[in-house]
């Protein structure tokens, strides 16, 4: 039993990294622009379906990893320039409504183009086996996703802490008005942030496609998990998304042995506990 529980903790870390990747785009946008981007799940969905289309046509997930985030970034920029930009002076409900509408629209378009049934995205042959970690078995592809996520997390941390854009982002999340008064084009920064959030959601979508397959309602999981993770970890903080993701992953995994029927429930129970004890999230601040 101990060996199994130990595996569940390790497995939970793996799930947690995937959950972090699902959430980081959402928290970035919230940190700067102060609203929950409901189109987050839709960007994830579009990228996953693009991965399906590209792998069906060319057999290469690597090509999809290149194409999908670029395409979704373009989509995010279009959404931001065309729709969101006009709502920044309005209360945040406007941004929520617009992104929710975009999400519904995108989902229906996906169903129109690809049909309502799920499809398969094959795992790249090189990663389709298992690896042996001591006494444990773990899918090679999941390990690959964990590694990629770790690299992305490191790159993001470097970008936020060490680059000018990162400094602007951090400053903007404290006071967007002040940043504007300092002569920086806040509108451009918002666009770049929204695009980056979209790109990260897209990366998650492509990487998740071989694990989950693609189906039109898969965005529900992305948005649901991302929301829980960033609330637990702290809205707007990258390290919060990481901590939140890992915690949720471990809770879910360990519970699936201790109380399998309640594993999902315990995820939300953990969120409720965190909100009670630290309303701003574990690493968040209001």
């Amino acid at each position, binding site marked *: 039993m101990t060996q*199994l529980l130990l595996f569940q903790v390790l497995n939970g870390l793996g799930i947690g990294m995937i959950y972090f990747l699902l959430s980081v785009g959402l928290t970035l946008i919230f940190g700067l622009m102060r609203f929950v981007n409901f189109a987050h799940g839709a960007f994830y969905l579009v990228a996953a379906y693009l991965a399906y289309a590209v792998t069906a046509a060319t057999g290469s997930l690597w090509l999809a990893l290149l194409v999908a985030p670029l395409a979704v970034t373009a989509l995010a920029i279009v959404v931001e320039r065309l729709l969101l930009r006009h709502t920044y002076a309005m209360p945040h409900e406007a941004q929520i409504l617009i992104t929710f509408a975009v999400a519904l629209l995108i989902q229906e378009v996906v169903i129109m183009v690809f049909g*309502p049934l799920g499809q398969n995205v094959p795992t790249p042959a090189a990663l389709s086996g298992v690896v042996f970690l001591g006494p444990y078995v773990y*899918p090679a592809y999941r390990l690959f996703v964990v590694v990629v996520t770790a690299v992305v997390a490191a790159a993001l941390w470097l970008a936020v802490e060490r680059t000018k854009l990162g400094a602007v982002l951090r400053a903007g999340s404290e006071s967007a008005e002040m940043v504007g008064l300092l002569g920086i084009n806040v509108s451009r920064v918002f666009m770049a942030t929204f695009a980056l959030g979209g790109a990260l959601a897209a990366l998650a979508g492509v990487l998740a496609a071989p694990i989950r*397959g693609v*189906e039109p309602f898969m965005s529900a999981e992305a948005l649901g998990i991302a929301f829980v993770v960033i609330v637990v970890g702290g809205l707007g903080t990258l390290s919060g998304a990481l901590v939140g993701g890992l915690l949720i992953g471990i809770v*879910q995994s360990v519970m699936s042995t201790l109380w399998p029927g309640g*594993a999902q429930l315990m995820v939300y129970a953990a969120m409720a506990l965190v909100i009670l004890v630290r309303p701003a999230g574990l690493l968040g601040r209001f």
Partner: protein
Amino acid sequence: MSMERRTILKGLAAAPVALAAPGYLRRAAAQEGTLDVAAVYSLSGTFANVGTLLNNGSQWAAEKYGSVLGKKINYILLDDRGDPGEAVRKVQEVMTQRGVRHIVGCTNSAIALAVQKEVFARGGVYVQMAGADESTGKDCNRSNFRWPVASYSAVNATVRPLIEKFPNAKKWYTITGQYVFGDSLLTNCKAIFAEKGLTHVGNSYHSLSDREYSGYIATALAAQPDVLAICNFGNQTLDVIRQAISFGMKRNTKILAIWSTGLDQYQALGPDNCEGVYFGCNFWHGVDTPGARAVAEVVKAKTGDVPNYLHACGYAVVQVLVEGIKKAGTTDVPAVIKALEGMSYEGPTGLETVRAEDHQVIKDYYLMLGKAKGAMKDKNDFADIVSATKAFLPPDKTGCKMT
């Protein structure tokens, strides 16, 4: 002023008659030249993908028949948006305001169970495709007829043949959806395990919204089962299969998906995942019977491809209703119900019979085995049939007391 008032009063008196008359005329027209058949499907909401295809199957069947006893079939779609309450409201409305008495379809068991009560209360006849045992079990009623097999049959038509094929497979692990349908699959499994002296090495429940199964699979792997029996439905079945395979479970364990819709799920999994996995199905397009050919013809004309379970199921419920009406020689509901009881017809799986005691259609349920990509004869040839069984509880054991 008084002239105006009298005119208004006359107008008011005439209004109800004017309103009622078209309705009466409509009803009269319905009785003469057309037969209204209402179809209850979800075209939006999370089951929209299922509902859309079921509706297609039913609508195309109605078009193919065209008319019955000289009356043109008027297909009325009731979109319940995935909500049983909405379904009941719409059925109520169409039965009371338009006098419809012939109803088909459901997108899930919750909707079917709610609608079948309503149709019975209002004296209609209802042919549907619920998966829950209760529909022709303890909740059975005279108006209600069910085409696909339910959980007892699905489990017995898959687990028993698998035990015969692998007599040394003693240790079984189950992953079960913690809802009524999942539980009924599990209960039926446990009954067979007990009877055959097999070891049920463990069960993991999961919730209706779960998508991450790695924890359950790790627990299953630790128990080292010979067979993993999956007791859930829909996308959750696919998720468990995909993730179990990714953890290498196929090497030492047979995977059995007791309740599968066949072709559309095979397409969603892809041949590499399907290979070597056992599936239980209500319909397979590869089975060549006159009834299956009729469905295949209709679907090919509309889509250019072979039918999947949803097409066949949607088609079958209309077929049963129309064949019942033809046999009765009238659209009068009590006569149709009587004609349906014990009726045999060429259905999508071959010769099918409506059992009189509980109105369950007696038909085959298939155990299928996924084949390697290289062995596929065409793009739809994902699996071979291992066995076809009619496994049903005797009527007195189903809990059905037909009034």
